[in-house]
């Protein structure tokens, strides 16, 4: 359609002066930031600092008050017909803290349903792709299991596969491992590492600092609705510039 052909050099996600309030409470106070193509950004910050709100504005699950957000060359928050927004959303993968798998569908149906219903992919192609994705997240044997029969880690891996099925050029994660028992965190993170290695552009809210160190190209530290620091992980972890970040990191280590 009328998508501007994005050049290799334009950022994948570009936030300009993004502000958002709930009533009188300002959650986002002018966010300016970019995520380059293929870049992995980890977002961290204290509870209530606006991390979820920020990541949810990128696929417009939340509206913004002012500013603009573009993703893959498309202005996400411009006025547009609902259909166009649906099409743009389908090109932004989103993984929730609480998985939100569809409990009435088996794992493979969860993955294949949206390509069929939203993109009009043929059933055969959708199920072939879903089978591939299940293999990629290591759950080939769980294709016909229902979400209620899967562990949290398995559910989150299916949720990642479901998002990937739409073939989005960018993936957003909002604390994908926070709802998991500790022994299941690793299996989800390793799927995410694989994605990053394949060159996926990722924006990921997480407090898994090991993941940030290994995988992230940059860490954004958010506090009170502002990006206070943005630095490569080794720099951020060893030499945080602000006292707020220092305090956050020392609390995290305890």
């Amino acid at each position, binding site marked *: 359609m009328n998508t501007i052909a994005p050049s290799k050099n334009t950022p994948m996600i570009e936030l300009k002066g993004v502000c958002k309030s709930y009533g009188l409470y300002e959650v986002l106070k002018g966010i300016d930031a970019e995520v380059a193509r293929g870049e992995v950004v980890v977002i961290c910050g204290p509870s209530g600092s606006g991390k979820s709100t920020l990541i949810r504005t990128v696929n417009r699950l939340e509206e913004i008050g002012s500013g603009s957000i573009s993703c893959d060359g498309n202005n996400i928050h411009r006025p547009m017909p609902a259909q166009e927004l649906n099409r743009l959303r389908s090109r932004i993968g*989103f993984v929730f803290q609480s998985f939100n*798998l569809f409990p009435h569908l088996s794992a493979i149906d969860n993955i294949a349903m949206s390509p069929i219903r939203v993109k009009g992919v043929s059933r055969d192609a959708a199920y072939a792709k879903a089978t591939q994705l299940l293999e990629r997240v290591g759950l080939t044997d769980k294709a016909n299991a229902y979400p*209620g029969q899967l562990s949290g880690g398995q559910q989150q891996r299916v949720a990642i596969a479901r998002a990937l099925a739409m073939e989005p050029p960018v993936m957003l994660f909002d604390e994908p491992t926070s709802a998991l028992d500790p022994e299941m965190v690793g299996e989800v993170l390793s799927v995410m590492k694989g994605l990053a290695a394949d060159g996926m552009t990722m924006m990921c809210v997480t407090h898994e600092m090991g993941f940030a160190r290994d995988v992230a190209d940059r860490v954004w530290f958010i506090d009170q609705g502002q990006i206070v620091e943005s630095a490569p992980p080794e720099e951020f972890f060893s030499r945080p510039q602000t006292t707020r970040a220092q305090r956050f990191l020392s609390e995290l280590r305890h």
Partner: protein
Amino acid sequence: MISDIIVIIRDYWLLLLIGQYPNGPLGGLAATLILSILAIAFAFPVSIALALARLSKSPFLNWPVTALVYFTRGVPLLMLILWGYFLVPLATGANVPSFLTMLVTLVVYQGAFLSEVVRGGIVALGHGQMEAARALGHSYLGAMRYVILPQALYNVIPSIISVFVSTIKDTTLGYVINVPDLTFAASQINNQLLTQPFQVFFILAAVYYVICWSLTRVAVATESRITRKRAGMVPLPTAKSLKLAALTDQPS
């Protein structure tokens, strides 16, 4: 007493079954079943439409439907039937058959009740499912159709069945506007016999009981299915196996 009942059934079974047909309109049990099935078949989709309208943010959809639901829930069904019977011909000048009046009234009334059940089922699901579907690019109605309603309706099956049962019971009220249903046939028989009202209306009660009881059995069976599913014991049955259960569910 039992023998009286058997005699009544022997003498009047055809009237009870199909009314005056073919010399008059189709009536009796056939009319009751047709009225019930049509009322349920129309009330169900109507209730989904009403529920979606009440959940809509648009005041043009939300307000009138909310008013309609409050109104119908606050007014006795019999009043609605009488209004429809006397006022619609006055207002339109058309001669509306009483069967149609009864059907439309039942659909509106039970549709309004059922819409609250459906809305409750949707609201109880929470935001997560809708957000997940929208994030994948589904439209609002697409998300409703493929994600929300299959779960919400499934979860409220027992309440849906209750409304269906009361729809069947409420078809008896058609009697007051001369809908030739089973109740009407029974009262015709009673008027002829004059001396055996207990026996006649016992037959009537027994037939309604059997119909409603079978439906209630379905409700109980599906309810236990939901419980088992929630415990993660069995995968969700498909619509097909559900229908099958309704047909094969034997009274214990």
